Structure formats: C-alpha cells, structure tokens
C-alpha cells in the first residue's frame, strides 16, 4: 500500500496551528501494524491551506479528501483531518501555507473558532534534507523520533516512507526534513544522530557536496 500526495511548490508563507491533544507518536504506533505486510508506506505529515484550491492537488488513491470551506472562502485540504477520520485519532498541531495577504483574515477566523495560531507570517522551512534510518525504526517509537524533530520549532519531518520486512527484522525509513535554514538543518541532523545512538539506529545522512 502506498499513500502520497503532492503539496504546493515554492516558498509559501506558513502558519502553525494547534488543536487537539494526541501525539503523532500514538497515531503512528496505532496504525503501523495494519501495514506490516506492505512494503512501503508513504506518509506526509503536513497539511496546507491553499489560497486558491487550484494548485493544491490531493491524491490519496481511494481515500477521500475533505475540503473545508472557511468563512474567508479558502479551500483547505487538510490531510490531518483525514488522519482524524481514517485513523480515528487526533492531530495536535499542523502547519498551513497561504498567500501572505490572507494571513490576517485567516488568523482572525481561526481565533474566533477557538483555535490558537502558534506562529504566522514567516517564510519557514526553506531548506530540506533527506535521511534514511535503518534498524528497529518502528519498535523504537518512530513517532517519538519524528516528534524530536518536530518539537524543535525550526525543523519538521515533511515526508516519510517506510519499508518493512518482517517482525524482528530491521526496518528502514526515509525522512525528508525541512528547516528554517542551513544551520537548523545541521541542528536537526545532530538531533537525529543522538536519537540514532540512543535507539541504535543507523542514521544515513546525505553527502554534503561542497559547491564552490
């Protein structure tokens, strides 16, 4: 089974929104067993608010997306709510992207609905890095591994693919991490290295080609 969807390209402005309580850790662990026999499981962890629905195509195979129309007239395609219905669990935080001039309106509307906006108006997550983890990636609490990056405030796991063989066999995960800058990418990588040591995971980082 393979899940994936495309997100908006470019450098959009983002807003981080919080609601709910359940950690992604639980969510991940809750449903991984149902994929034990599937070779790959792609999972993108972020939702995006599109200023116009046109550029944001959500493609989840047979799974239906849930467009929500806000008072401001924006089309929100929120995979997070999809996780909500599909995995019957809740999301604690998600990041949305939109045109800069819509931010204030959306913030106001969200506030009125009792949702707190953690951070808004930054050009965030402009750098990205790919990492492969090998070992007991799931058994060592993948959700926690991801949260260690996500809770930094400067870096987030944007893309995750898993490859599992069998029980007690090492599994592999591909992570794409985005961060607010090059230094933050390095900090995120050193967090992953630490987590790798702690959880006995092989952390395979990309080569740093020096472009001169």
């Amino acid at each position, binding site marked *: 089974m393979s899940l994936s969807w495309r997100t908006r390209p470019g450098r959009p402005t983002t807003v981080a929104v919080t609601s709910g309580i359940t950690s992604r850790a639980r969510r991940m662990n809750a449903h991984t067993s149902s994929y034990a026999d599937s070779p790959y499981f792609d999972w993108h962890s972020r939702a995006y608010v599109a200023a116009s629905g046109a550029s944001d195509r959500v493609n989840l195979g047979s799974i239906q997306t849930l467009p929500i129309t806000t008072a401001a007239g924006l089309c929100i395609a929120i995979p997070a709510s999809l996780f909500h219905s599909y995995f019957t669990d809740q999301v604690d935080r998600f990041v949305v992207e939109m045109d800069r001039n819509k931010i204030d309106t959306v913030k106001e509307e969200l506030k009125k609905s009792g949702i707190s906006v953690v951070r808004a108006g930054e050009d965030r997550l402009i750098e990205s890095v790919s990492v492969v983890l*090998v070992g007991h990636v799931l058994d060592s609490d993948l959700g926690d591994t991801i949260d260690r990056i996500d809770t930094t405030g400067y870096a987030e796991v944007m893309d995750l*693919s898993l490859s599992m063989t069998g029980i007690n066999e090492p*599994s592999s995960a*591909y992570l794409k991490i985005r961060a607010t800058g090059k230094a933050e990418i390095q900090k995120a990588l050193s967090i992953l290295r630490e987590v790798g040591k702690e959880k006995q995971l*092989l952390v*395979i980082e990309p080569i*740093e080609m020096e472009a*001169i």
Partner: protein
Amino acid sequence: MRDVKVSLVGYGIVGHGVVDALSRKKAMLRDMGLNLRLVSVTDHTGTVLAEDGVDASKILGERTLENVATSGMKGKEAISAIDSELVIEVTPTNIVHGQPGLGHMEAALSSGKHVVTSNKGPLVVSYSHLKKLAEDNGVMLKFEATVGGTMPLISLVERTLVGNCISGIQGIFNGTCNYILTRMTEEGIPYTHALSEAQDLGIAEADPSYDVEGVDTAGKVVILANSLFNMDVKYSDVDVTGITGVTPEALALAQRKGYAIKLIGDVPALTVRPTLVPLGSPIAVSGTLNSAAIYTDLSGTITVTGLGAGSIETASAILTDVISIYRTKKIDAIF
C-alpha cells in the same frame, strides 16, 4: 642513464604485481633514462638476491620465495644489509602497531633509502615520525598506492593541483564495500549473501571485518588528513561506521528517492559512514571502483575514479611513485 638499485620487501599479491610491472616496463623505463634494477626480493621465508636484477620469469610462478631464496636474510636485516637506494615495502597492513612494515620503513629511511609503499599501517600509526625520518635522511617516502590503489589522488593533489587550496576530499575508498553495496542494490540481496559472493570472487577476505567495518577506509582517511591536510591525527580520531547495518530495503528506499548508499570517507571531517549520494553524482560509482571528489578553491570540484585494488593495478601506483622520485630531481624541480 640513471641506474637505481631497488629492493622489494613483501611478496604477496602486490609484490608479485611489482615484479611483473618492473619487468614489463623495463624497456620503457630505459627509454626514459631510468634503469631500475630489482636487486632483491624478500618475504617471510628469505630473500632472492641478484646483483644484475632478479629474473622475473624465475620467481613469478612461485607463491612464496621458499624454494627460490638465495639467502636466509629477512626483514630489517635484509633492508640494512642489501646495497640498494630504494625499498618497495608491500607487507601486510596492521593499523594498530604498524608492524612489520613500520620497522622496515624505519630501517630503510634511516639508512638513507627512499621508501615507496602500499602498506597503510605504518603511515596510519606513525606518519609524522616517518616523514621526519625521511627528511632528516634526505630521502623520500611515497605512498600513492595506500589510498585508492591505482586511482591517482595524493600525487594529483600534491603536484597537479598544486596552487589550489584543498578544502576537503570525500570518496569511496574501499572496493569491497562498494561491491557489496552495489550487489545488494542491484539484486535486492541481503548483506550476508552479497558478502559471500564477494568472498567467492576473491573481492572480500575470509575475515571481512577490516573492510566492512570501515577500518580500512578510516586508515585511508587518516593518511589523507596527515599527508594532504597537515593534520596530526590518529585512527581513533575518526568516527567510523561500517556497512554491516545497511539493508537491501534501505538501499531500495534510498534509490526510490534518488540516492545511492555508499561508504564515504571524509577529510577533514574525519568520518567514515554509509552516506546518501545522489544518483548520477560522479562519485556514486559502482562495483569495486573507488572514487574521490576533491574540493578546491581555484579548480572547483575535481573528481577521480579508478580501481582501488588489484595486483598489477596497485603495482602501477607504486611504479608511478618510484619514477616520480627520480623525475622530481630531473624535471620538476624549481631552480
């Protein structure tokens, strides 16, 4: 014609290649004005001595010198006693104590003989000491074959790229690991299968740990750091992770995302670890090939690739070093 008496110490895979290469290139070398005379070959059983040059055809068929030795002299004793001005040292590598090569090189350098080697051990353990010994005795220590086998790297940086500042070198320095990772990717086979295939083909040793645990690559990282970056580092300064934890699933996952997983040594970072290298990158070479990206200030990135091991291939790097010792004086010197 410059007449040079050469002694060879160590008569294994590389030693045989050296005898073969010197014999095959004899005429070409003479045309260059260099008469290399291999006056002795020594292994753990004894020494073949020949003032006019050892007859390659008489010894190349012998695995050891046991049946052809003309003298019982061994090791340091042979090096000091035999009249030669250059010693080719190709005994087994030991990166913990460097022996027996370290003693051989000390004996040669301190008696005023040039040393050319493919043996990493003594350089990993005692580079600065050996370098000083060579300088104090007015002779040269050359070791192109220790890193990347026949792939030109040290002389490329020291000579061809001279005038550039080198900010870093990253590369694949172990053909055994590269072969195993390549086969795991191509066939989706587990590490153990790829390893036994490599062992069957003679690409991996019966005890492969030296290669697959990254020890060999780390030794090369130490040599590059000390010789090209003037760092004074030891093996223990290198952060080493081998390839035994890499799975075919991880390789497949990486490949789907546009990466190969390669064991990469990095100087001056002093790391050896499985690393994601973009597919199509010039250093993402396959099979037993080695590769290196050299980052320079004036020339940008220079990439080289070539065979990291092999009898005649490694001997070719040794031959280049030997010739360069005499060319340095004749052609390349600044007057």
